[in-house]
């Protein structure tokens, strides 16, 4: 069975990873793919959208004679993550109640 993950939750997952440390594109995709079956072309639009919403910013760091573009959480991003966590907690509680069926 495959349950879809909404765009908003995916935003939350990306923000949550970036809350722990800064990532570059490939590493972030790898990290997400260890838990979520997302395709490799999924992440770029997500990162772009979050950057446009000022939830994250980028900086370049030299590596092996080239640059790596790292993504870093902003203050707006931290707030957004808190909102998504809150929504998820409510949603999770409601679904647990329904699915696990101990309604007495």
């Amino acid at each position, binding site marked *: 069975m*495959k349950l879809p993950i909404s765009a908003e939750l995916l935003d939350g997952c990306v923000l949550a990873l970036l809350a722990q440390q800064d990532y570059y594109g490939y590493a972030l995709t790898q990290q997400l793919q260890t838990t979520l079956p997302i*395709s490799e072309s999924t992440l770029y639009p997500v990162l772009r959208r979050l950057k446009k919403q000022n939830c994250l910013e980028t900086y370049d760091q030299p590596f092996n004679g080239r640059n790596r573009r790292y993504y870093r959480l902003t203050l707006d991003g931290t707030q957004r993550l808190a909102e998504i966590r809150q929504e998820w907690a409510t949603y999770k509680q409601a679904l647990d109640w329904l699915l696990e069926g101990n309604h007495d």
Partner: protein
Amino acid sequence: MTDYLNQLEKLLTPLSASERDDVLTFYREYCIDADLTADAEIRQHLGTPKKLARQILADYSIQAEPDETPTPQRNFHRIWLILLGLLASPIAIPIAVCFVLIILAGLATVGLLAFTAILVLAAFIVLGGCLLIVGLTLVFKAFAVGIFYFGAGLAVLCGSYLLSLIAYNVIRGLLQIGVAFSQAIYRKVRKPQGGFNK
């Protein structure tokens, strides 16, 4: 790798130069980090350049760009990009085809409307021009008649100018609705971006 990226670059021409650079930088870096060098390998991981480009373009077009004034041409272009995106995304085929046909039918209707408006306007402008010329030639022989034709010509020309404004705004409004509609469809129909396996 350069071949794949060159193809991607060509397909991303609708984007501004800085946006295109951003995409290409991301995927160039991605391929190097993922150690993907052969074209076939990259295709296996990211899909064909065409598919990747369409995904990117459609994602761009569903996000409102606040600094852009929506002209009919831009809206038309946007709806087109969303259509391409719909066709490229892995969605339930029958529904997708249905929506694509609806959007195409809408576009065709607006296109025909614009075409008709242009024809009608052209007819009015020719008529107005003729009346002006007739009026000018008559004005020395029969002053009152000449002035009458001249005035009628001016009235027709001004009327067609007003009509063109109305037609332009109506068409722009329809395309605006079309953009909103296709964006909504794209968001709804597009298969969510992954899933939990259980």
